[in-house]
């Protein structure tokens, strides 16, 4: 499922060192920053409090988040300043701070948002190199006057409040974080896709009342057989949960019904009294499920097995790619089978949707029609007409 060409992929992140004379040196590899990640954003903060700027990196590829501890040599001084506005905005965003030290003037401004999609710490960090004494600090508050602070020592943290007579010393803190690199988690072929908005299915596809699992499988697909065996083994639990299993075999009619696979699945379960029996799909049934899959997934798959959890009212709730873990299915049947959450609480992971998002039922109708699924096309057109879509959450 992860195929496709790269485009300027596998590029190493870069780091450039300021040589102080208008020129920089490429220190990408030697600094340890040259990850192959598809990097997007970087945010800076002296996270561990040891007096240099650490980095959070946000990537497209996994790991999508990295923390890099800066191991600047000890003995380089710094000054750390936290501003608070009283006349200007309280964050003092836009304040410009001059630190005069060692015959140089170091200027920083307090920004909210820079780079790309990133915001760094509001604590202003001044690296001071070998400077041993800070002469003075000048804060130009946004929309206000400049204010001078004196008596600040290097290697300390201060709070500077607009209008306050002096800088306030903040407690020192330095922690040791151990090296702990991470790597991308390898892909697996399976996934559980909880629909953001449930999708009503036409009565023919939804079948009888009650929650059900429609499963597409083939006798030539080993994971399919394993999955069926696993479900068969939990037949009693599925019965109790009130979940009907409808395995649809994609193999040719000639091999039906004495399918080895069917036989194998029953034998494997050690019994022949299963509550569910694989059957052949009706005309257009698989075509329709494939159309639904393309509608639901941004990148549909041809892989098997694939399963559809349908609630008691005939709405598709969850798509499973690859084999289902029976325990997950039982939990899903409980949560999504009878009275599924309609709104913001749905999802494969704990969280909330802010916005509702209606499905493009007209688009789905058109896809059905393009495949000569006329009945289904009419169903979705009618649905779109009636606006029988769960209403958006907040919009």
């Amino acid at each position, binding site marked *: 499922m992860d195929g496709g060409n790269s485009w300027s992929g*596998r590029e190493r992140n870069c780091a450039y060192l300021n040589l102080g004379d208008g020129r*920089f040196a490429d220190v990408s590899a030697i600094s340890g920053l040259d990850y192959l990640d598809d990097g*997007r954003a970087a945010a800076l903060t002296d996270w561990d409090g040891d007096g240099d700027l650490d980095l959070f990196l946000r990537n497209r590829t996994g790991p999508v988040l990295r923390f890099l501890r800066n191991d600047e040599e000890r003995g380089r001084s710094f000054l750390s300043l936290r501003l608070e506005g009283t006349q200007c905005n309280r964050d003092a965003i836009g304040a410009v701070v001059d630190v005069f030290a060692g015959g140089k003037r170091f200027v920083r401004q307090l920004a909210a948002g820079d780079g790309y999609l990133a915001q760094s710490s509001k604590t202003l960090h001044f690296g001071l190199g070998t400077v041993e004494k800070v002469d003075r600090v000048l804060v130009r508050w946004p929309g206000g006057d400049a204010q001078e602070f004196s008596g600040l020592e290097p290697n300390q943290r201060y709070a500077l409040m607009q209008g306050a007579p002096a800088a306030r010393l903040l407690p020192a803190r330095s922690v040791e974080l151990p090296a702990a690199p991470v790597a991308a988690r390898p892909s697996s072929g399976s996934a559980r896709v909880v629909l953001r908005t449930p999708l009503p299915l036409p009565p023919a596809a939804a079948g009888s009342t009650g929650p059900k699992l429609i499963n597409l499988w083939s006798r030539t697909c080993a994971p399919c057989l394993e999955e069926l065996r696993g479900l068969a083994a939990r037949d009693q639990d599925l019965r109790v949960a009130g979940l009907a299993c409808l395995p649809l075999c994609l193999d040719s009619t000639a091999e039906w019904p004495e399918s080895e696979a069917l036989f194998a699945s029953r034998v494997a379960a050690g019994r022949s009294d299963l509550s569910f029996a694989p059957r052949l799909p009706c005309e257009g049934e698989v075509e329709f499920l494939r159309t639904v899959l393309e509608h639901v997934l941004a990148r549909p798959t041809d892989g098997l097995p694939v399963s559809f959890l349908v609630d008691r009212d005939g709405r598709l709730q969850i798509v499973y790619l690859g084999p289902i873990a029976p325990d997950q299915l039982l939990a899903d049947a409980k949560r999504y089978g009878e009275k599924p959450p309609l709104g913001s609480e749905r999802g494969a992971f704990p969280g909330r949707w802010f916005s509702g998002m209606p499905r493009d039922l007209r688009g789905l109708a058109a896809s059905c029609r393009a495949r000569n699924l006329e009945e289904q096309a009419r169903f979705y057109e009618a649905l779109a007409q009636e606006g029988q879509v769960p209403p958006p959450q907040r919009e």
Partner: protein
Amino acid sequence: MNRSRSHALALTFAMGSLALALPPRCWPQENAPRTARQQEIEELMGKNSPLDDDWETEILYKHADHELKELAGILAQRGDGSALSDVSRFFADSSALAPLRPEGGEVRTVGKFSIRRCGAAEAPEEATATDPAAVFARLLAPFEGAAQVSVAFKLYRVERHAPGRFNTTVLYQAFGAASERRVQQTARWRIEWKETDDPDRPLIAGIDLVHFDEIESRGPQFTECTGAVFADDALFADLMLRGGDYWFGRSDALGEWNYLGHNGLAVGDVNGDGLDDLYVATGTGIPNRLYVQNPDGTTTERALEAGVAWLDDTKGVLLLDHDNDGDQDLVCAMGSLIVISANDGTGTFAPAHMLRAATPPNFYSLAAADYDLDGDLDIYACRYVKTRYGESLPDPFHDARNGPPNHLLRNDLPAGFMDVTAEVGLDANNDRFSLAASWADYDADGDPDLYVANDFGRNNLYRNDGGKFVDVAAAAQAEDQAAGMGVSWEDFDLDGDFDLLVSNMFSGAGQRIAYQPRFKAGAEAERQEIQRHSLGNTLLRNNGDGTFADVSDDAGIRMGRWAFGAVFADFGNDGWPDMVVPNGFLTNELKDDL
């Protein structure tokens, strides 16, 4: 070679063939009729690769690149002399090699780095050598004892200068570490190639050294502690060790696709304990994460309890005190909405304002400042494409004016936020493909000015004149017409004013093609604009008089690959801002087709 054909190449290298990069079938059926122009651009973008075309230099590139990759493999094995004797097969008889690791030069110590630099001018004259094995043995001598050496070449100019001969400009990079001692070499070489009877295997006739850096340090500057900081998050492996390519086929297509990974992050102290915390924006169906820092530097993930585990695709995020009540509120760009959640002072949030754009395009980067100096923070929000990324085609691609508008939202609390984009003059040149913006008072007149990085064309520098804005980018020589993706302001030269770092795209293919004499022949202005497009990152020095100077070449910082969020970051801790460049566009299972 007709005009549209040459346009095709420009599009192919600069934009990337997104239609190829993504599986074609996932693109929606085209129902709306396309204009002839759209059809042309789409066809040209998607279907041409320079190698399919008749650019001879791209064929030469392919062969030279193949040889250099093999050479790099041999050099990386370094070690014993027998391996290096093998390099002679890449060279023509009596090839002339400059000393690739010259003596002398200028030596500087900055932080933990010791840098020895030889430019073409500084390199002392030394006799050219003809024994490649000896030259490379000397080049690689500093890696003696290194457990592993990496060697890479990047080839970015190709020109035929004589029958059977061509020149390439090549970036050479080598790195190795022996226990604590680390060595990196970065050099630019001009390689002359001689073609042979076998057209696939040109031989190196000579190498000139343009630039050479050798850097040593004890230990790395950065050590990854990701696993320690996020050890508490039970879903870290599920959510953060997997990328956009994974989620693309594994989540509901409703809403923004997760494929491209344009989700940001914000640092701020959400619970007022004096320690920075981290909010991480994620794609559709993946809950945003709030990592609250513990005193020992580890984190506790508490987005759900804090009320900010949004599942909607979230791009730009900011932590700021929007109502001046002394705590950090959260601003999220979710689709065409900007949602501000108010902090109750303990790090728990509740949505307080929802700002909806009048048109559907998604918001990207956010940047806040008090532009009208009335004591509260206003928000500027960028927008990139009118539909989905990769579907809205820039036209013309090097100076596109068919992007969606950005917005300035004025803080009028308690009444709410007001869209004042037009009222303050930010509707000028507000039709580009904007990815990022950042505020700074570059003219030191006391109010914040705004720089906007636009892909496919010119950037904006909106000078703030007492609450009204004028786009002075052209007059200030700060347009940086290219593939703008990120903005960072710092005083890199310590002269007291703010300079600009703009993320752009560095494309070897783009530079190879756009510098061919026949590329856009007869349309010199357009040719130059397109040449700029793939040059890489830009450093604009503030001249202090309202204008900027592009000093990227002197600074030597262009090569940032496909750069997104390059930022100034004084990691060397000496007060001279350094740079960090996150880059790389789309890594998939298959390698680049270019």
